């Protein structure tokens, strides 16, 4: 096209015009066709994923000290699998993450629904306070929760017999002994869910709700068949967020975990102080795979629901 248009011109002029035309034909979104942009994109991807790829690669490194590549092996997966403490921490982490996901999604979804649906006094103040855990430095949250649980613990342990003592004894058994960590995680994760779901609901056409009631549906049927399906993508996104936030949280967990209850990030931290061995890489890789699979599953679920 460009050559046709510049046919009758002298060669030098034709060339410069051609360059001009090609430049104009490149839309602003044709970033793939400019070298420096390609390089920049490449660098961004390297910065994002090189550490993770290195982590995965070195989980197959046949070296105890894991500094220089020595050769391929999968034996450290076995080592990690046989490391009782590491596996226990992993199981704890996943259990906490699941509890956190479940409760944070329900509480966050309900909070979002409340803020979307109703008008009540101090609503905007409530909305602001609810989002506080998102902006409060984690270290402050951690200390606050530590103080809270310590107070609670001292108060509750004052009962040596009776129903409260029985209640206390419940929380020494797995998985209820993880409750304090799970509660802490729910406390900081549910605002994220609420914010995501609230954003989703902002786009809801209220005439849908009215149409449903007009067609004979009760409040509950309307919620179940019209509002909930609309919320669903927000809920799934929020749940995923809560899951990953809980799974990789270190600071708050560090403050709220007891000696008996160690999560994977806390365990890894204590291990790397004695040097990073490939079994830690292996366990981390497994964690990445679990998260990836969960994400892909959630996305699949969402897509099949729509069709």
């Amino acid at each position: 096209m460009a050559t046709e248009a510049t046919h009758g011109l002298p060669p030098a002029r034709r060339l410069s015009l051609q360059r001009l035309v090609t430049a104009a034909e490149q839309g602003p979104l044709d970033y793939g066709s400019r070298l420096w942009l390609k390089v920049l994109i490449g660098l961004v991807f390297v910065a994002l994923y090189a550490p993770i790829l290195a982590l995965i690669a070195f989980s197959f490194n046949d070296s105890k000290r894991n500094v220089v590549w020595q050769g391929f092996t999968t034996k450290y997966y076995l080592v990690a699998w046989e490391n009782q403490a590491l596996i226990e921490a992993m199981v704890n982490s996943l259990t906490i993450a699941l509890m956190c996901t479940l409760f944070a999604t329900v509480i966050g979804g309900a909070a979002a629904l409340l803020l979307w649906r109703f008008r009540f006094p101090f609503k905007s103040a409530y909305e602001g306070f609810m989002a506080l855990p998102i902006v409060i430095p984690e270290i402050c949250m951690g200390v606050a929760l530590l103080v809270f649980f310590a107070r609670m613990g001292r108060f509750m342990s004052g009962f040596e017999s009776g129903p409260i003592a029985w209640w206390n004894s419940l929380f020494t058994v797995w998985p209820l002994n993880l409750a304090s960590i799970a509660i802490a995680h729910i406390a900081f994760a549910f605002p994220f869910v609420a914010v995501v779901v609230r954003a989703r609901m902002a786009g809801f056409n209220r005439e849908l709700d009215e149409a449903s009631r007009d067609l004979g549906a009760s409040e509950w049927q309307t919620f179940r068949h019209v509002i909930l399906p609309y919320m669903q993508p927000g809920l799934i996104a929020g749940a995923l967020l809560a899951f990953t936030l809980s799974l990789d949280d270190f600071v708050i967990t560090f403050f709220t975990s007891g000696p008996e209850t160690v999560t994977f990030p806390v365990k890894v931290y204590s291990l790397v102080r004695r040097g990073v061995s490939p079994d830690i890489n292996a366990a981390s890789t497994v964690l990445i795979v679990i998260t990836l699979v969960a994400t892909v599953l959630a996305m699949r679920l969402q897509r099949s629901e729509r069709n």
Partner: protein
Amino acid sequence: MTSQNDAVVSIRNITKMFADVTAVDNVSLDIERNEFFALLGPSGCGKTTLLRMLAGLERPSSGEIVIDGENMAATPPNKRPVNMVFQSYAVFPHMSVEQNVAYGLKVGGTPAAEIGPRVTEALEMVRLGPLRRRMPDQLSGGQRQRVALARALVKRPKVLLLDEPLSALDAKLREQMQLELTRLQETVGITFVIVTHDQDEALSMASRIAVMDRGRVCQIASPQELYERPASRFVADFIGKVNLIDGEVIGLAGNAVLCQAEGLGEMALPAEVPVSGRIAVAVRPEKLKLSAVEPTGPGLIKSKGTVRDVAYYGDTSNVFVETPAARELSVNVQNERRSPTVYRRGDAVWVSWSPEDTLILTE
């Protein structure tokens, strides 16, 4: 005119306040069984609020609504024998066409065996049969509206409420849907109540129209009556175009009254009811005739004038004529021939019309 027994909807002294704004102000009206009733008015006149109160989506501040012999005061929207087609259509985006239409039956507890045939019947009625498995985002605006229609009709309501149903469609499609809605109403034999701000829509579809302004009903009448015998300046001005000329009654001349119209002088007009004092003389632009020479005829009202502007619309033209007393009259000329008489700015013309086509408005 309306007997109590025929009314499927009776609205009695309904008032609706939003904070300190009165949206609907003491409205009473009856809607007869199987009629196509239109609530017409400018935006903010309370017509949609009135419709929403019929659906139960809004609670009246005072007054009562009786639908099919039952007082609706304590009846929630999901228990009312009415269904609504919303302005945005409100088609459920996560359900197929079929599921949308079946929704009302399903939540209402209709036996599963009955749902299928009724959905099919409703979809046939709006000619959506072949699209029943489509999702709403695969439909055009007109098709989505048909889904909303089918979804409401499948419930077999006593009254179908339509809130500005055609406002989102383009002009051609709107005209087609107007015709289709009227035919549909005749076929299904359900009372339709439509809210619109478009006078053409109301005139062409409705059997009766209530014109509303600032929360009140100005006039309830058939389209012809509304157009030819508007009860007030507002109605005359809102429905179609009109030349409104302020004037005063100065005497009687047999069966007619003698009026002094501003800028046009004295004229004798037939009056059905005795009038006096300040009035408005109203005459529709298409009732006015233009001619190059002075027209002759018994009792014709006529005036010399100069053409000020011509607006060409294809089928008709609007010619604005200024009388010697600086009074502007709008004259609607049918372009019946391919090369009609062309009026140009500055042309000297005569404007005339028959006294029978003139209305005296007191309000």
